[in-house]
């Protein structure tokens, strides 16, 4: 019986994967949204938060913001390359994106080490509890994104035939970026 699961595209032309990704991101937004709301409510009701925040390195975090934003640009370039059907350009831009993610994690590791050495461990106060939980969960999401991007890189041959694979990875990577755009001012600047 030559039976097929024939439907993949929805009538409007949006691939199913994209619908699923948006539902997934909606629940992720609720998770980070919940954490960020808790942080804001606690911070508005407490004192001593700005002093604690002053111990963070603005330079490193600003560099990290720049790195992550740049990697969002390179993954857009990767999608453009996939749509053009150019595997080398796709690999190059995905490689740069992954490099950006790795640099971000590297700088984050340096930050954590400096802070812990200075005695600011997760149990050093409520600001630090929030700081490590929020940036830690974000870092886990960066790692997840690196795995996704890595898989797309290894299967670049398939990805130029199905550019929406790169688009989905890009959607997720942008989400990781957007979360950081919220975390940076809330934790470092405020």
């Amino acid at each position, binding site marked *: 019986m*030559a039976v097929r*699961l024939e439907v993949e595209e929805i009538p409007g032309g949006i691939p*199913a994967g994209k619908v699923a990704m948006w*539902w997934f991101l909606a629940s992720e937004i*609720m998770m980070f949204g919940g954490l960020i*709301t*808790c942080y804001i409510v606690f911070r508005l009701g407490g004192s001593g938060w700005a002093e604690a925040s002053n111990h963070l390195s603005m330079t490193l975090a600003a560099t990290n913001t720049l790195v992550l934003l740049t990697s969002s640009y390179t993954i857009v370039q990767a999608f453009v390359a996939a749509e053009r059907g150019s595997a080398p350009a796709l690999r190059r831009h995905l490689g740069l994106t992954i490099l950006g993610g790795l640099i971000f994690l590297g700088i984050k590791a340096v930050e954590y080490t400096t802070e812990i050495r200075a005695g600011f461990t*997760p*149990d050093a106060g409520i600001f630090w*509890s929030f700081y490590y939980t929020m940036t830690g969960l974000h870092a886990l999401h960066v790692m997840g994104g690196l795995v996704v991007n890595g898989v797309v890189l290894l299967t670049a041959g398939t990805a130029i035939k199905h550019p929406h694979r790169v688009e989905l990875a890009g959607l997720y990577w942008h989400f990781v970026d957007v979360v950081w755009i919220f975390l940076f001012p809330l934790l470092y600047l405020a």
Partner: protein
Amino acid sequence: MTTATAEHVERGFWTTYVFSTDHKTIAKQYLTLGLFWTLVGGLLAGAMRWQLAWPDSAIPLMGEIGPEVYNMLVTMHGTIMVFFVAMPILLGAFGNFLIPLMIGARDMVFPRLNMLSVWTFALASLVMLASFFVPGGAASAGWTAYPPLSAKAAYTGVEWGLNLWILGLALEFASFLMGGVNYLTTVIALRAPGMTLTRVPLAVWQQLAAATLFLLSVGPLIGGAVMLLLDRTLGTGFYAPELGGDPLLWQHLFWFFGHPEVYVVLLPALGFVLEVLPVFSRKPIFGYRWIIGATVVAAALSFIVWAHHMFISGMDPRLAMPFSVTTILISVPFAWVVFAMIATLWRGSIRFDVPMLWALGFLTMFIIGGLTGIFNGSAPVDLYVSRTYFVVAHFHYTLFSAVVFGGLAGVYYWFPKMFGRMLSGPLGQLHFWLTLIFFNVTFFPMHHIGLAGMVRRIANPLQYDMLVPHQWLNVLATYGALCLLAAQLPFVINLLWSWRAGAPAPRNPWNAATLEWAAPSPPPHLNWGPSVPRVYRGAYEYSVPGEREDWLPQDLAPLARSR
């Protein structure tokens, strides 16, 4: 990505029964796991009731238990029944089985993600089961795990039990997130030709609403659970006032999820009942679009009612009034659905088959639970009854009626489609009447015990002088609970016997109009023959004037009317 071709048809034992991507097999895997946990959760409840009726006497098979073990029983009974019974059976089993069949798809849109979801749930089950056997025993901080009790191992004496509890729930959430994304995308992307959104059966609509609620409410609790785990392991201070945290934060995060979660469980059950009522009344469902509208309104409202669980928690008392208002408001859309159900019955040609009995059981019991909900939702009354057995009675009348009465309406109705055999009618009747009677014997007295002042989670009511005169009601409830457990025996016998030796089920034993009855019983792999069915009409065209038959299947072409 989802193209399953002919090679899928040649499948071995492992890919057919174990690592299957077939939505019907996955449904049965969820059902099996859910029924296993029902047994565990039911036995825990039996032990609790024994302790409450005859405190500190030896429980059969368990011996004497102290208050610590009783706390564990309460915690694990609640956790298991909500997350490991209601969700896998109502969403996991029926969502998986019904959605593709009812919308005319060959499978879920992401079959492998579906398989990952059920195996993640199996892993969650394993972790939760293992938590009973680690030193210190399973979690005992209540199914709501309020800090500070849950935030430090020293307070309950449970170290790994509670950590595993968090891990098991995290895996369970991951499993149902995958499932929810799959359900929503499948209905958006894979509907058969002609299956417009206003022809989609209400059971599917309710699954969609439930999946959306779960996806949007669980995030903050995942964040909260990470904080709890870090408080326990790294010494962070989210819930510790001495470190600048606040125990109430957990209650807010838990109930922001917890209240939508009860609708995650309720809505699928409503969906089953909404399917069964028109079929056995031989009438179209009353107010199809209004029911969908009411569901959406209730789902939206469920995000702004959570603090009604916290009226006596010490939160800002100014919050009580707005949350009271939204809570009482939410009974409007639900009353709407209930009235639509009653109006469907009105002047119908009612057939009292077993699925219909369970549906009517749901309707009557749920109304009782809904009415006590109005008492609990009103802050001044709730200050008096909060955390008493009145609340326990309330949520068993709502949740037990949803999960057991609604769920069994689904099991008795769709068993022929799932397994290709009919269930025994007389055994089903016996099961229904015994369950209905002993359910009420168990839970109705709890209203009174609660109003008399018995709070939840106490292990020995006889320690309180004011409860001693009411102890006979505790004993009565316990006899009811033990009989209620025994009343499930006819069901187990019926399931096993009919599964092997029941009468072969015809394609459409109930003369129902929805699409799943157009597939063979049981449906083959990929459900439909060479092409998927085409849909011409709504899901509930019963007793249409001028027609020879009193039902018009959704895939019946208009031309065939003149035959």
